[in-house]
């Protein structure tokens, strides 16, 4: 039995081709994973650098996590801004969903970075955590979203929650340039591109870029997929809530 549609909504390209897009992302990521873990032979066998050795493959996972988190942060702030302009509830759903997925990628980025650093930078020590500027920046970003969710749970009325939390989200986003550009300049870093360290392009073998760039696109795709699923689920939830009870 199918329920009648009360509000027929315009379906976008993404809505009508969702399954195909999802399949494309899954296949893409499968190819990336195969490339990332191809050992032996000459095919995509990465150059061996002392200390780094095969941990260099973490480049395919750790760095795209950050790109995905930053992309989702921008998406979240953008929708919060639009939510303040229009007061549209869907904008709030989008901002919140993007923030949630951004936190997941932020935590994964911290985890992959922490493990990587332990076995390379801090080889032979017991250090797992160091206040490297990029690490600090990411931690602060995750903390900001933690505060954002806590603020949301302290607001009962849904329209007020959308507006007030959007203000906090935009306000926090205004300080991001300081986290990204000013703060790292004032601290010493072991990350590539920092003072005294070679830039990313100088130390990366062309072979690795063959996997790295597709991995960036793939992880952003996965991030978008998770975000889109959450938005769809929330929209449906809201439609169910708004549907008036009619006896069958």
């Amino acid at each position: 039995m199918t329920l009648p549609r009360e509000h027929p909504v315009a379906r976008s390209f993404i809505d009508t081709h969702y399954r195909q897009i999802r399949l494309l992302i899954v296949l893409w990521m499968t190819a990336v994973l195969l490339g990332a873990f191809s050992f032996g032979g000459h095919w995509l066998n990465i150059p061996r650098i002392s200390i780094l050795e095969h941990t260099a493959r973490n480049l395919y996972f750790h760095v795209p996590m950050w790109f995905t988190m930053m992309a989702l942060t921008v998406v979240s702030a953008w929708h919060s801004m639009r939510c303040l302009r229009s007061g549209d509830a869907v904008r709030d759903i989008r901002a919140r969903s993007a923030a949630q997925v951004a936190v997941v990628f932020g935590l994964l980025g911290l985890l992959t970075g922490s493990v990587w650093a332990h076995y390379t930078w801090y080889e032979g020590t017991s250090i797992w955590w160091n206040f490297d500027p990029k690490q600090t920046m990411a931690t602060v970003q995750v903390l900001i979203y933690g505060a954002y969710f806590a603020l949301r749970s302290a607001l009962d009325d849904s329209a007020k929650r959308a507006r007030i939390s959007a203000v906090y989200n935009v306000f926090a986003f205004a300080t991001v340039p300081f986290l990204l550009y000013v703060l790292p300049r004032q601290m010493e870093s072991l990350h590539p591109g920092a003072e005294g360290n070679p830039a990313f392009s100088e130390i990366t073998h062309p072979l690795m870029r063959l996997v790295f760039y597709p991995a960036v696109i793939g992880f952003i795709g996965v991030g978008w997929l998770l975000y889109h699923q959450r938005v769809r689920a929330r929209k449906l939830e809201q439609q169910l809530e708004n549907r008036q009870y009619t006896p069958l």
Partner: protein
Amino acid sequence: MKHWLRGTWAVLRKDLRLELRSRYVLNALLVFVLSALLVVALAAGADSVDTRIQAGLLWIVILFTASLGLGRAFVVEEECNTALLLRLHTTGSMVYTGKLAYSFLSVLTVNGVLVMAFLVLLSVEVAHAGLLVVTLALGTLGLSGATTLLAAIIARTARSGPLLPMLLFPLLMPLLLAAVEATHLSLTGSVAGAWNAAASALAAMTGFTGVVISASVLLFDHVWHD
């Protein structure tokens, strides 16, 4: 413009007058600051603390004091049911600027006492007093700039509790790092080169303060009006 200035001044004067009548915030904050400082001094064991750690401890106490004292700015209006009157008679930017000025003045007063007590209790020697004063003033302005908008936000929530420190601390990280750096230089740096050495930290603090205050002015109306 003249109208706006008069409105801002009226909000500031109202808050100052209320404060002078009860002296609640000032008394509470001064007692808090002194007891917190005593705890810090006892825990640190005054004789062997590195100047960087001293600077860090000072800013931790400042941060906690501000998050305790400034959180009340808008909650008071809601509790006394005066928020509606304020909304009727003034515009959002007047209220924001007035409250910001009040927060700045009260925290600056408390910080002045705090630093004096800090220098005496931890027997700190200041190499460059001018730099310390500028750092404190800039840091206080950035602190109250960020806190005023957040105080307005938590006044709209049903359960405020420990919300303000949680919202505030991650946002203030850039300011805090620069302020600790500049304070550290003012305690140790040579008298001649201190300004040059602290220039980037001071620039970061100025930029942060500017960004935070402009963003607050733009966003305040969304919080203040229903």
